[in-house]
């Protein structure tokens, strides 16, 4: 499963070999890139509407035409995000029918134990960090938080976009509830991404594997020890590196 990559080192004559391990498929990397751009655009066009009374918002929304344009951008981006979600869920359904959906991302009891041990480690009760598999509990929290958050945003967003149609099926009370959920959930999500996700991928270490697709041996050993062991000790025989199963 691992492959060798040559990187230029300090000495021009010597070539240092860095062993890399594939982590994300091309499809997953594209999904993340589209998601990132969508969330950024949705926040940039949504927050000025939420905080319409503030001065910075008023410089962005300087005229009713500008407001209409910002709303159009928000709606188009929402459609792209919806398509992405449908693709993501569709792929998962397809893999389930083929019995190929890897369970790496599903939460397990081990994750709760890991989180507990991590807390003990952080408050100096334990000396060692717990060891993790392909996705540690932090990454699972990130995935599932955003999974449900985007779900709420999409549902409440469409309720706000087509309130007249929605109230033919649902009681009218869902409209103001959706407005509140949409704008509050957006803030919670923004806080979560900035504090939690940015810390883990930028501050703790610069983890660009979602863009490059691979991790170095060193990163594998220190952050995904269980997966590293699995991959190096019992090499798998089959060559099926299906998009998600890597």
């Amino acid at each position: 499963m691992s492959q060798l990559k040559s990187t230029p080192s300090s000495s021009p004559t010597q070539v240092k070999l860095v062993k890399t391990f594939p982590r994300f498929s091309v499809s997953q990397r594209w999904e993340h890139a589209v998601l990132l751009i969508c969330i950024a655009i949705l926040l940039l066009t949504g927050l000025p509407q939420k905080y319409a009374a503030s001065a910075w918002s008023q410089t962005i929304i300087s005229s009713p035409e500008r407001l209409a344009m910002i709303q159009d951008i928000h709606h188009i981006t929402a459609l792209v995000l919806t398509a992405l979600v449908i693709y993501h869920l569709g792929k998962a359904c397809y893999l389930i029918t083929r019995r190929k959906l890897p369970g790496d991302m599903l939460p397990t009891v081990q994750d709760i134990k890991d989180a507990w041990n991590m807390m003990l480690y952080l408050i100096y009760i334990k000396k060692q960090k717990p060891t993790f598999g392909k996705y540690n509990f932090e990454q699972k929290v990130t995935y599932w938080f955003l999974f449900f958050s985007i779900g709420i945003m999409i549902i409440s967003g469409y309720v706000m976009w087509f309130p007249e149609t929605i109230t033919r099926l649902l009681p009218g009370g869902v409209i103001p509830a959706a407005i509140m959920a949409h704008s509050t959930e957006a803030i919670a999500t923004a806080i979560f991404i900035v504090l939690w996700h940015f810390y883990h991928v930028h501050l703790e270490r610069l983890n660009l594997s979602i863009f490059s697709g691979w991790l170095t041996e060193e990163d594998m050993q220190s952050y995904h020890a269980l997966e590293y062991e699995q991959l190096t000790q019992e090499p798998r025989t089959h060559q099926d590196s299906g998009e998600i199963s890597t």
Partner: protein
Amino acid sequence: MLIHNFEKKLPGVFLVIGFLLLLSLLFFIPTQAKDLAQETEQYCLSCHSNPDLETTLPSGETLSLYISPEQLTDSVHSPNGIECEACHTNITTYPHPAIEYQNVRELSRSYYVACQKCHPDNYTKTLDSMHAQVAEAGNLDAPVCTDCHGAHDVKSPAEPRTLIPSTCGNCHTEEFSIYQSSVHGNALVQESNPDVPVCTTCHGVHNIQDPRTQQFRVDEPDLCAGCHADQEMMGKYGLSADVYNLYSLSWHGVDVSVYDARWPTIQHNSAVCTDCHGIHDILNPYDPNSSVNPDNLLETCQKCHPGVGPNWTGAWTGHYEVSLERTPFLYYVDWFYSIFTPLILWTCCIYVALQIIRIIVARARRSLR
């Protein structure tokens, strides 16, 4: 010798006479002034108190020249010494100069300018008013001071207050009759209620503006809030004073406040108070004819949201706080996020802070070793 003595005393005599004259002024002048004024009025009334006195104007209209002495004494001007010649500046004596006006209206429109002499502020305000604009555009029936305040019978304007709508109603008959049957007008007529708005409360007094402009529209929630956000006044009638604040938080209210603050002249249709409650015909929401009575609410919503179904009215949270009974969905969402958002914030903060501390301490230890 005698003459000499007299000449010697002469300055003293003058002084005494002068002093007495000065002293007499103190007693004499005010009474004399009053007498003179009354004489002017009486002088005029000596002819004009004749009910049959009249003249025909070039337009063929008959102009009555009769002035009722009782009306004059009941007015605010005459008892305060402001008499005929204060306004009729071009008439000083008999025979009068010839009347140059073609008709009665032309005469009123030129005489009312005299009000400016003593009431310059209010006169100037009227020049900015809707009435002045339509007059300029050629409608000479547009009211001038005397049309509302009266001429020879001018009285203190708000006595009684009930008089104001009927004064406006002289021309705005339809609005007046609608207003009378509204919750406001009815309270004014039935109870002489001192709190309900009369025409001038909302439209202003002398500088009345066109209420059909976008500016008037977006300012309107603030206008209603003048009374309906007044805790004390609303308390008297068992009404909620939070209606304005809660409206401001609603979809419509947020929209309107943005337009009010930034683009007050740009056409925009988000609902303001009157769009749902009515304008001159505002009724108690429990009145079966009220546009916001639950039975009529859907129809009112459909004015702006054509074709919406019966569930639609449930989307309007009303002028009420979030509550389990009235707005259960909103209540649970609010309850959820009041816990969820701070929980996320604090969990992330504490977890990341602990991680950072752990890493920094570990690095510091390694470098010290």
